[in-house]
């Protein structure tokens, strides 16, 4: 575990640093391949910046709206750097809305845009477990396997490493072109990536020691991953059927 890097006397948090590097690298990869999906590279950059700005502002405003009393007492907290004053769900909704509005204005095709962004999503899926490993978050269940790592008072499954390896493999498939054939209609690459990532999550979530548990002891993230997997496969099936009909 290495949550902080001490550089020139300053403590720099590793987790947000890794995610920033992932965003930069992922968007660079996405820009490189954007043309293959019929999207101009600069639109990828614009969409990412708009989405990012909306995520940050929307997440903070959504959090403030849910805790009005705390922010009324100290309005300057609205611009504080504290990550804890943030609603990721609200941020994601704001980012999705902003990107949709901008995309519609520029007449960007929905599925083609998702395909073009897939390399960025794939990089983030690999970077997030690495960030979790740095902070010790999303840790594994106790294990006596020889490769178990000591974390939080127990030897545990290195789930973050399993997830990073799986995501790295998926990123390779996305980037090497093994997940998508040139000329396929928009959406195939994104849906195959989503299905593969959801399957990986479904498998490794079962080995986590920090899963939120729901009714009948079901791990909630596993349930969500199964739902995403099912939706991706159904959409892929429909797309394949419509392509076959057209042919």
């Amino acid at each position, binding site marked *: 575990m290495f*949550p902080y890097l001490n550089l020139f006397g300053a403590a720099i948090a590793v987790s947000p640093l890794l995610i920033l590097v992932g965003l930069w690298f992922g968007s660079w990869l996405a820009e490189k391949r954007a043309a293959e999906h019929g999207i101009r590279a600069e639109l990828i950059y614009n969409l990412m910046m708009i989405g990012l700005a909306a995520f940050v502002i929307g997440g903070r405003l959504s959090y403030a709206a849910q805790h009005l009393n705390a922010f009324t*007492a100290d309005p300057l907290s609205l611009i504080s750097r504290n990550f*804890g004053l943030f609603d990721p769900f609200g941020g994601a909704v704001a980012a999705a809305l902003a990107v949709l509005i901008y995309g519609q204005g520029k007449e960007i095709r929905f599925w083609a845009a998702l395909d073009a962004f897939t390399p960025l999503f794939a990089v983030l899926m690999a970077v997030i477990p690495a960030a979790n490993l740095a902070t010790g978050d999303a840790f594994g269940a106790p294990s006596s396997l020889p490769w178990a790592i000591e974390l*939080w008072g127990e030897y545990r499954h290195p789930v973050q490493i399993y997830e990073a390896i799986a995501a790295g493999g998926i990123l390779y498939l996305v980037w090497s072109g093994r997940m998508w054939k040139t000329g396929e209609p928009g959406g195939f690459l994104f849906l195959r990536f989503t*299905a593969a990532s959801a399957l990986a999550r479904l498998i490794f979530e079962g080995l986590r020691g920090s899963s939120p548990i729901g009714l009948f002891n079901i791990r909630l993230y596993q349930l969500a991953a199964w739902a995403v997997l099912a939706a991706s496969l159904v959409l892929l*099936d429909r797309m394949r059927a419509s392509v076959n009909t057209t042919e």
Partner: protein
Amino acid sequence: MPNLTQTQFRMLAAAVLIFGAGWMGISTSLPGGTDTPGIPAPKAGFLAPDFTLATLEGESISLSDLRGKAVIVNVWASWCGPCRAEMPALEAVYREYAGEDLVLLAVNAANQDNLNQAAAFVEELRLTFPVLLDEAGQVQRLYQVSALPSTFFIRPDGTIMEVVFGGPMAEALLRTRVEMLLQEAE
């Protein structure tokens, strides 16, 4: 990509979904969740490691004696800018919730601080919460403090609700966390 017929694709998809559902069922009996009773670790969901330290006035305080109350442990040093910057917010929130079951322990990293400067800072800001002296670095080791300030929000049952590394913390952050802690205490 292998060329699958529509039927082959559907069979593969069904097999994957059945496998997924089966694994989800098996996973219900595997150890999981943040249900980690009894394991002390400086991490949300775990039991807050116990410690006993003396205050600036020489009184001894143990974390385990505060069970049943919401506790904030803030590790700081007088030379640390963000620590100094967030102290007024800590004091304001501590005074605001003075009538509630809330304890704030400001643990001074005394092994890397100057006692006179720390005491002068406490006097200058007229801090009313207990200031503990971690002269041997015991709390910093137990709580794996790698950056100052570090703040641990501890539930009345002794488990950690949240850890905030770095600062300064905004007053709104403190207020929302105190409200959450006190709600859990009810």
